[in-house]
C-alpha cells in the first residue's frame, strides 16, 4: 500500500490540526470535537445462531458479537463491534498496525457470511464535553438521556439530514463522549452541522 500520509480522511480538507492549534487556549469549552480518522472498519454479515460463525470470529482476536440490539462490545481497548441489525455488525479497529480484514476473511472462508471493508468510506467524529448531549439532541430524535443511552449503547439513526451511527463511549471524568460514524461523503456536512449546533456552547477542536 502507498504511504499512509497519502491517505486522506473524509475531513482532511478542513485541516483540523491547524484549527486545533488556533483553539488551544479556549477555556471551558462546552463541546470538544475531533476526528478519529482512517480507522479500519469492517461490515460483517452472518448468522449469529451459527456456532461455526461465532467460533470463527472468536478465533480472530477473541471477537464476540453483541447480541443485544443497539449495543457494542469492546475487545481490548482498540476494537469495537457494534450491533447494526440482527445479522449485521460494524467492527471498528483503531490499531492500524494490526488490521483485521485479511484475518477475518480467512477465518470466514467456508461460511456463508460477508466481510466487507468499509473504513475508507466512513469517518468518525468524537463529540465530548458537558454540552455534547444537547448538541446531538438538536438533530437526533433518540432519547439520549444519560440514564437511557448508556455507555456501550449505539444506534443507527439520523443526525440533521445525514445517517449516522452514534455510540456512547465510557465517560471520562464525568464527561459524556459520543462517537459519530458517518459516511465519508456526508462527513463535511455532519462536521459543519455539529459546529453550527454547538455555537451557543463554545466548541473546541482537538487534534492528535
Amino acid at each position, binding site marked *: 500500500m502507498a504511504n499512509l500520509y*497519502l491517505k486522506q480522511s473524509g475531513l482532511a480538507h478542513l485541516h483540523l490540526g491547524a484549527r486545533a492549534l488556533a483553539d488551544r487556549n479556549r477555556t471551558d469549552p462546552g463541546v470538544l470535537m475531533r476526528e478519529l480518522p482512517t480507522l479500519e472498519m469492517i461490515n460483517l454479515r452472518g448468522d449469529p445462531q451459527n456456532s461455526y460463525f461465532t467460533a470463527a470470529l472468536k478465533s480472530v482476536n477473541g471477537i464476540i458479537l453483541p447480541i443485544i440490539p443497539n449495543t457494542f462490545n469492546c475487545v481490548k481497548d482498540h476494537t469495537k463491534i457494534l450491533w447494526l441489525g440482527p445479522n449485521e455488525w460494524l467492527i471498528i479497529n483503531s490499531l492500524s498496525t494490526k488490521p483485521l480484514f485479511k484475518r477475518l476473511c480467512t477465518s470466514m472462508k467456508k461460511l456463508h457470511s460477508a466481510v*466487507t471493508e468499509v473504513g475508507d468510506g466512513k469517518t468518525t467524529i468524537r463529540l465530548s464535553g458537558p454540552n455534547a448531549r444537547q448538541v446531538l439532541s438538536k438533530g437526533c*430524535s433518540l432519547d439520549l438521556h444519560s440514564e437511557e443511552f448508556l455507555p456501550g449503547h449505539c444506534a443507527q439513526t439520523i443526525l440533521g439530514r445525514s445517517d449516522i451511527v452514534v455510540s456512547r463511549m465510557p465517560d471520562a471524568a464525568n464527561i459524556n463522549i459520543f462517537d459519530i460514524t458517518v459516511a465519508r461523503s456526508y462527513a463535511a456536512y455532519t462536521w459543519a452541522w455539529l459546529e453550527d449546533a454547538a455555537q451557543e456552547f463554545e466548541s473546541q477542536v482537538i487534534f492528535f
Partner: protein
Amino acid sequence: MSAGYRLQKGGLIDRKTRLNFTFNGQAMSGYEGDTLASALLASGTRIIGRSFKYHRPRGIFATGVEEPNALVQLERGPRTLPNQQATRISLYDGLIADSINCWPSPDYDAMSILGLFYRLIPAGFYYKTFMRPATAWRFYEYFIRHAAGLGCAPTEPDPDHYDKMNAHCDVLIVGAGPAGLTAALGATRSGARVILVDEQDQIGGWLLNENRIINGQPSKEWLNAAFLELNDTADAQILTKTTAFGYFDHNFIALCEHRGPTQVNGNGLSRQRIWRVRAKQVVLATGAIERPLVFADNDRPGVMLSGAVRAYAHRYGVAAGRRVLIFTNNDDAYRTGLALKEAGVAVPAIVDLRHDPSGELAVAAVRAGIEILDGSAVTRVLGSRGVTGVDIMNLNNTGDGVIGAPRRISCDVIATSGGWNPTIHLHSHSGGKTIFDKRRGIFLPSKTTEANFSVGAANGTFSLSDCLKAGMKIGKQAARNAGISSHNRRKAPVSIKEEEADSRLLWIVPTACPTSHKSRHFLDQANDVTVSDIQLAAREGYASIEHAKRYTTLGMAPDQGKTGNTHGLAVLSQVLGTEDPGETGTTTFRPPYTPVTIGALAGRDVGPLMDPIRMTPMHHWHELAGCAWEDVGQWKRPWYYPQNSEDGLKAVHRECLAVRNAVGILDASTLGKIDIRGPDAVILLNKVYTNSWESLKINRCRYGLMLSEDGMIFDDGVTTRLAKDHFLMTTTSGNAAQVLEWLEEWLQTEWPDLRVYCTSVTEQWANITICGPSARALLLEFTDDIDLTNESFPSMSMREGTIAGVNARVFRISYTGEISYEINVPASYGMHVWTALINAGKKYGITPFGTETMHVLRAEKGYIVVGQETDGTVIPSDLGMNWAVSEKKDFIGKRSLSRTNSMRTDRKQLVGLLTENPTTILPEGGQITAKQTLSTPTPMIGYITSSYYSAVLGHSIALALIKGGRELHGDCVFVPLEDKSIVATVINPIFYDIKGERLNG
C-alpha cells in the same frame, strides 16, 4: 393623550427598572415585567390599530393569545415581525412597534371611510364582486391587499438563527397555571421525567393575574415555592415563553420557545427554538379563555374582557380606565369590580344579564358599595374613538328584547364577561372528541385518542381549589400511566372555595333596534365578522360551520377566533333553529395554536446546511480546478471545467475532443456500488436483472437492466463477478440507495431463503475513469502487476492489482466508446491516485472532464441514461434493448412485458435525430410532430430526450422517443417551437464509431 393610568402600587412589575420604547414613532416608557400592551395602557394609548375590513379604531381587548385587535409590526429592518399581539410582547428597552393596517396613523386613518359603507361590504363581498370575469381578480387583488390590513414581512435576510431540540419525557404538562403546576409537582414527586411548558415568561398561568390565598399564603409565595421545588429537580424541565402549538400522532408535541426578542448577536443563541417532544403521557392544563358578551358596537376602544381588566390591575399595576363599567352574565366578573374598587378605580355599575345574582361575590360587591343593575343589558356604546358611556336597558323575560327607557352611564371602559371557554385546542389536535355542556355553554374535552389528560380550566374546572386538587391527582396518575411506580402521598395545596352561581347564556345581547341595523355586534374583531354576517351566510345556505367560517372568515385571523368562535357557532345554530351549538359542531382545530415563524420551522436547515452536499474524495481538487458543478441527488459532480474565459459549450467541446483524441479523466465515484455475496447470489441477479448471469466468468463484467414489477426500466449498471459467489454491482449515481433497498426488499420479503448478503460499498471506493486513445499508455506507467494488453485484459473485464502503489480494482468498462479504465481505489487514496494520474498525464494532454462531456460522448454512442431516455413509462423494447432481456427465465417485471399495452406497435421507441443545419441544437423535452403545418390540435408523436452538439462529428445530435420510431428511419419529423418548426431526420440512435472499433484503443 393623558398619562398616569399606572396604579400607585401593586403588580409584578419592577418599578425601579424603567424601559423606553417607541410606538408609532412616539417615545414611551414602561417597567420591567410589562407587556407592550400593559405599557401602552398605562400610557393612556387607547387606539392601537384599525380593523381589517372597515378600518374601525381598535384598542387592547385582552391580555394574552386571544387578543384580536392589538396587532403590531414589531421592530423594523431584517428582524421585523408582522401581526404580533401586543399582549404577548414582553417589554424590553429600545423596543420599536408600529400599528398595522392604518395610514397615516391609527388615530386618523384614510381608509376609515370604508366603515360608512359597511352595509355594502357584507360577508362574501369579495367573492361576489371581484370574481367575474375570472381574470379581473388579479387586478383587484392588488388594491384589496393594500387596503386590507396585514403587517409586512421582512424583505432582508434574517440575521438570526433558529434551532430545534428533541426531547423525551414521561409526562409533558402544557400550562403552568394552578392545575398544571400541581400536576408537575405530582408527577415529579412520583419520580417521573417531566417537562412543564408555559407561554408566559414565568410560571403561574392565570394565577399571576390574581391575588389569592393558597395554603394560607399569598398565591405568589406558593408559586415561588413551587418553582424552586421544580427547578431543583434534575429531571424536571421548565420551559417558559414556550408555546405548545401542535399535538401530533403518538404523543408528539411541537413547542416553540422564544429565547428573547433581541438576544442574538454574537453569543450563538438561537432566537427561537422548536422543541420536538415525545411524551409518554401529556397533561393539558391549558386553562380557559374568556369570551365577551356580544352587544352593539362591542368593538369600541375601551371595551375589554373583564379578566383582562383585572389582570392589568393585579399583574401590571395598570388601571384600564378611570371609570370601568362591568357587563357580565356570570360571577367571575364581580372579582374584577372588587379588584378595581380596592385599587381605587371607579366602578359606576355592574350590569348583569341575570336577575337577582346572589352568589357570595355579588354579595361582596354590594358590600363594597358597587351598584348592581340586574336583568339589564348594555344596548348602546357612546364614543366612536373610545368608550365615553353606555345606555342600559332592562331585558324582557325571554332575553331577546329590551324594555323600558335607557339609562345613560358615563364610563371609559366596559369590562365584559360572557364566561370562559376551556382551551381545548391541543386536545382537539390530538384527535380527542369534544362535548357541549349545555348548562354552561362550553365545549369540554371528552374521549381522547392519545395518552393524555385535560385538567383544570381546560377541563371545565374553574374554581382554584378544585384545580389544585385535580392537578395533583392527574399528575400522579400520569406518572403511573407512564410506568413510574409511585410512592408519592403528598397532598394537594388548598385554597378556599368561592361558590359561584350559574351564568345566563345570551348569545346576542339585544338592542332597542334589530341587530345589523346601524349598530354592529362583532363576533370576530380581528376579521371584522359580525352577527349579521353569520346570519346572512346561514340564509345563503352555508349551514355547516366549516362553510360559514370560510365564507365569512370567522376565526381565520392571526388570533384564530379565540374569543369569538363559540358565539359564532351559537349564532349559526340559532339561525338554523338547532339552539344547541353542540349539534352544529365546532370547526376543526388545527396546528398551530398560535402563529409560528417560518424561520423557527426551518431551524438549522438553511443556507449551506439546508441539504447535505455529498463530496467525492476528489471534490476539493475539482473545486480548485474551478469546475462548474452539477447536482446529482445530493452529490456535487463536476459538470465541466472551464478554462480561462471559456463558456460551458466551448469547455465541453474541448473536453469531448480530448477524450476522442487523447485521454480524459472523470471522477465517477458517485456510481452506486453494492457488494453481493453468498451461494445464491446468481439466483438473486437472475431475478432482479433482465438478462442471465450463470455464464458470467470470474473477473468479467456484464451490463444489466433492472425493471420494476410493472416492466418499466428503473435502473441499469454493470455487474462484475469477483468470485463464484461474489459480485460487485454498480448502479446509477442517483439510485444507489434505492437499488440496495430494492434488493433487500425482495430478499427479506419474498425470498428470505436465498443466502445472499448485500453491502453498500459506494463510499468505500473512489472511481477514477480514464478514457481515450492514450489511456492505456498512461495507465502503463502506474502499474507493474496488471497486464494491460487487449488479450489478457479485454473489454468488460476486471483486474486487481496495484495502481500508483495503491491496491486497486480496474474495470474495462466504457461509457464513451473509447478504451476506458475505471480505476477503483479505496476512497482515502482517491486524491492521491487522481493527482498522480493528472501529473503524469500532462504529456498525453490529459483533460479532466465532467458530466456534460460524459453525456455528449455516450449520446454519440447511443447509450442511454436512466432518467433521461427513461421516465418510468419505458420498457426495454422501447429502447431497442431486447438483446439484454432473457426469454428463458423469470425476472422481476417480465410478465408485464407481455401485457397488451407493452406489445403495442405504436409505443414510443428510441431513435436518433439529425437536423438539416448542423449547428441547430434541438431543445431537450421538445415535442415532435409528424406534420410541419400545424392545426390545433396536432398529435404529438414523441419528444426529445437528449440533445447536444457533437464536436467530433461537427454536427448536432439528438435522441428521441417517437411512436413507432424504428419504422420511421429516414423520415422527416418536426419540432414545433414558438416561432418556427425545426425539421429533423430520424436515424438509428448511434452516431459515432458504429462498429465499435475504438473500444479496444
